[in-house]
């Protein structure tokens, strides 16, 4: 039977949400600042509109405007918000509450903020029904359990009795989504709902959203900065920049034919899964989003645009129609569209070699042999003989050749940060050894000599936490130079300025304080400080994950340049597998304190895979709705390191166990052996290599070729 109804159905369906020329402003001490201008879009029944843009583009402001949550200083200046045919603008609080009632629900980034930590899950969920629908308690609870089942929550009746802190992040977000759906809302606004989650959990949550939408026919407004996530969930996409919608089209259309320079820029600055640094270069968007009180007079993107002509600075381009349903706010959209095709293709072309990878074996700079880091935790019972220990890192061995980059990936809690902290000497080793340039470094940093400390430096995830807010940039970069006597005293300032220039910052930054810098600039200063003393090894712990994509690209390029210029060896931790692939020569995949697969980057991203690597890869959101990616989802969350599973630590979640005889009994009892695929590529698994080799590539062949 035909799935669509040919020739029938209502001719003119009323969209669930229709926003027309919306403008929102905030009263600030600089006067009234317009945060959102001239925003229009529609979301139909059962449709998902993805809103994408960098931070500060007004995405959340639009969402807050719809639910009238702008705070005391925000107001809707003009425009209409039609929800189910009725205008929400200009109504009293009481009227709004009734109109909107329980027909709009919101899900935010941090599930812990939406849940009351002092109430049991069951009580707070049931409250929704008891208050709104005056349902009886036992009936409400039964409904809640059914809803938890729908969001694939394991053991829902038990979850009802727990407190929020007893659930993992992914489970909490499921509870929030279930709660939002209890009232069967017509519109669901999701503001970065999966951003705080691990990639495997994120993938499961995105699948869930797709399933639920089909069932509930809910209109979804999905806000994210991540193009890959947007590609996976959206039917339509609106790209926002500096408070304006600059491009709006069907999802496929926008990813295949981006026609606004900003959209194109966003796509060119994210590494795709399968892109390697030898063959590609990320194209950051220069400059940054202008603050809303200092917008350029013409096109808002003009100062950062590569296509800009004089007229762009003079007047604001209108939103014009390119094809059916494809709207672009650019004078030269046609040109951008055609040039964009070339640019995107060039991004993926392999011949454009930026730097030759050094394949010849070089001397080993860092060797880690069977490293263990255990934390003892308070015993549960007062007089218990054995002291429980958390085995954060348990028997990790690898070596890093000079001038190469080793990437470490894994879900949160797998011990990757602990490992790095042990290398730099912030954690004490409980066993095993580490050697750096021939020196034993299994001692804490306080016992290391100055030269060793100089040679291992670190870049942290959050630059705010690493820069001292009360010292100038110049002073902070100069500090390691003075401390390690890297340059003569009278040349320190020159050296700092040289470093700033290397980081593409000019000398005027010397006297600035960290609060006067943007996030990307702060991270550059942090990198400058780390490389100031010319260390041999730089440890990067998620150096770009707190940054916007356009800035992320610039910082990644910078790190690559630094490495090329100074020949630094790097250890690079990240949870984003496309970034790791782009940045690293070798990759180690960690699970629950152990390395499960290690090898050259290209070998990790192609079969044979460790089953865990395979699942990680299939979870990466790809910014291309036409990309074919196999769906392998892990059930459950990472088990506790306090009591890791016996045998293979991954056996509780492994989707490939059934390949082994007897349903993988062996995985439960016996620790798996290392199997060598090539000399450098090793996999820790019971499944024979021949069988692992027969795995299909996670991302389909043609896409990988293109990528």
């Amino acid at each position: 039977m035909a799935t669509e109804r040919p020739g029938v159905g209502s001719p003119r369906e009323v969209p669930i949400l229709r926003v027309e020329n919306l403008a929102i402003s905030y009263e600030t001490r600089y006067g009234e600042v317009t945060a959102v201008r001239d925003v229009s879009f529609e979301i139909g029944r059962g449709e998902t509109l993805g809103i994408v843009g960098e931070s500060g583009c007004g995405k959340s402001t639009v969402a807050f405007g719809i639910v009238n949550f702008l705070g005391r200083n925000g107001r809707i200046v003009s425009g209409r918000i039609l929800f189910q045919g009725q205008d929400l603008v200009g109504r009293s609080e009481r009227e709004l509450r009734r109109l909107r009632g329980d027909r709009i629900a919101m899900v935010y980034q941090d599930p812990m903020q939406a849940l009351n930590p002092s109430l049991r899950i069951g009580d707070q969920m049931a409250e929704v029904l008891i208050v709104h629908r005056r349902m009886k308690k036992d009936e409400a609870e039964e409904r809640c359990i059914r809803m938890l089942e729908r969001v694939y929550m394991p053991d829902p009746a038990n979850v009802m009795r727990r407190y929020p802190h007893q659930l993992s992040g992914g489970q909490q977000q499921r509870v929030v989504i279930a709660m939002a759906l209890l009232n069967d809302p017509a519109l669901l606004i999701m503001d970065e709902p999966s951003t705080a989650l691990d990639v495997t959990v994120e993938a499961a949550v995105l699948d869930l959203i797709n399933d639920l939408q089909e069932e509930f026919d809910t209109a979804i407004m999905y806000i994210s900065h991540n193009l890959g996530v947007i590609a996976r969930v959206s039917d339509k996409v609106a790209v926002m920049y500096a408070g304006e919608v600059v491009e709006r089209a069907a999802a496929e259309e926008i990813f295949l034919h981006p026609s606004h320079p900003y959209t194109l820029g966003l796509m060119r600055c994210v590494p795709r899964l399968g892109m390697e640094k030898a063959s590609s270069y990320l194209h950051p968007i220069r400059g940054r989003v202008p603050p809303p009180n200092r917008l350029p007079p013409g096109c808002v993107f003009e100062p950062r645009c590569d296509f800009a002509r004089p007229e762009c600075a003079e007047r604001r381009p209108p939103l014009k129609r390119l094809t059916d349903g494809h709207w672009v706010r650019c004078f030269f959209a046609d040109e951008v569209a055609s040039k964009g095709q070339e640019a995107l293709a060039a991004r993926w072309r392999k011949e454009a070699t930026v730097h030759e990878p050094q394949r010849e074996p070089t001397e080993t700079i860092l060797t880690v042999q069977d490293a263990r880091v255990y934390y003892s935790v308070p015993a549960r019972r007062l007089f218990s003989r054995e002291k429980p220990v958390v085995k954060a890192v348990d028997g990790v061995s690898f070596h890093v050749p000079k001038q190469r980059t080793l990437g470490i990936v894994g879900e949160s809690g797998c011990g990757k940060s602990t490992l790095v902290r042990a290398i730099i000497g912030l954690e004490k080793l409980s066993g095993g050894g580490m050697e750096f340039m021939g020196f034993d470094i299994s001692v804490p940093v306080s016992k290391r000599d100055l030269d060793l400390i100089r040679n291992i430096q670190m870049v942290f995830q959050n630059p705010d936490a690493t820069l001292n807010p009360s010292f100038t940039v110049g002073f902070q970069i100069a500090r390691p130079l003075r401390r390690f006597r890297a340059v003569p005293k009278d040349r320190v300032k020159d050296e700092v300025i040289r470093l700033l220039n290397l980081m593409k910052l000019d000398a005027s930054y010397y006297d600035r304080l960290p609060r006067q810098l943007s996030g990307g600039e702060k991270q550059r200063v942090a990198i400058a400080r780390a490389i100031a003393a010319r260390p041999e090894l730089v440890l990067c712990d998620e150096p770009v994950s707190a940054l916007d994509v356009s800035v992320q690209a610039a910082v990644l390029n910078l790190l690559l340049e630094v490495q090329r210029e100074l020949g630094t060896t790097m250890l690079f931790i990240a949870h984003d597998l496309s970034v790791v692939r782009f940045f690293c020569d070798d990759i180690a995949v960690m699970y629950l304190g152990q390395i499960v697969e290690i090898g050259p980057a290209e070998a990790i991203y192609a079969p044979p895979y460790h089953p865990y690597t395979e699942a990680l890869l299939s979870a990466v959101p790809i910014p291309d709705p036409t990309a074919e990616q196999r769906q392998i989802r892990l059930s459950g969350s990472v088990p506790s390191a306090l009591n890791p599973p016996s045998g293979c630590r991954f056996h509780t979640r492994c989707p490939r166990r059934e390949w082994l005889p007897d349903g993988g009994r062996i995985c439960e009892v016996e620790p798996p052996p290392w199997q060598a695929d090539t000399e450098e590529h090793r996999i820790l698994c019971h499944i024979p290599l021949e069988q692992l080799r027969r795995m299909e590539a996670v991302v389909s062949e043609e896409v990988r070729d293109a990528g």
Partner: protein
Amino acid sequence: MLVRDYMTRHPLMADPDMSVVEARRFMGENNLRHLPVVGEGKRLLGLVTRQTLLVDPGRLGSLNVWEIADYLSRLTLKDVMVPADEVITVGPDVPVEEAARTMVEHRVGCLPVVDENIVIGIITEVDLLAHLAEMMAAGVPAVRVTVRMPDVRGELAKLVTAVSAQGWGILALGGAPAPRKPGYWDAVVKIRGIAQKEVVTALSQVEGHEIVDVREA
């Protein structure tokens, strides 16, 4: 083929305090003929149709023009709606044909779909007609043949056997008692990818069956 699959979810709804003037505009703008009136928690309070919004001229007869304006501006949906206990509703797990029967029986064009008195959707005659059209594969090119047969068990099986003996597939099949001919049954079969002539040749050989209509549809 249950109501939940064919209803419109998240229908436009109104508040009992909405003025009749606004409701008329709202229904006109959005091309609605039926408007469920709901309270807190989408609880069904009543139903408004275009007829219910027509103001009885008799009630206005004794009023002057100023009083009429005032009367109309005060009139809200809760004054004119069909109250919930008189509204015919349907549950989401009811077969569509039952919903159709309910609508025919009560001569209404729409049924709010309620789950424990909470409006979760609406099903209208258009939705049911869409279902009918879909069931009979309307708009899909095929040979449509109507065969009249005695209303006896096994007769339809004879027809289906005759079709499948030719190796043809049935695109759609429906049946009803023959109009004005008690004791007989009319079955409509749609067969795709075959010429009309062949269908007639094959089916006219079935004993006791009469082809009453055949066409390319």
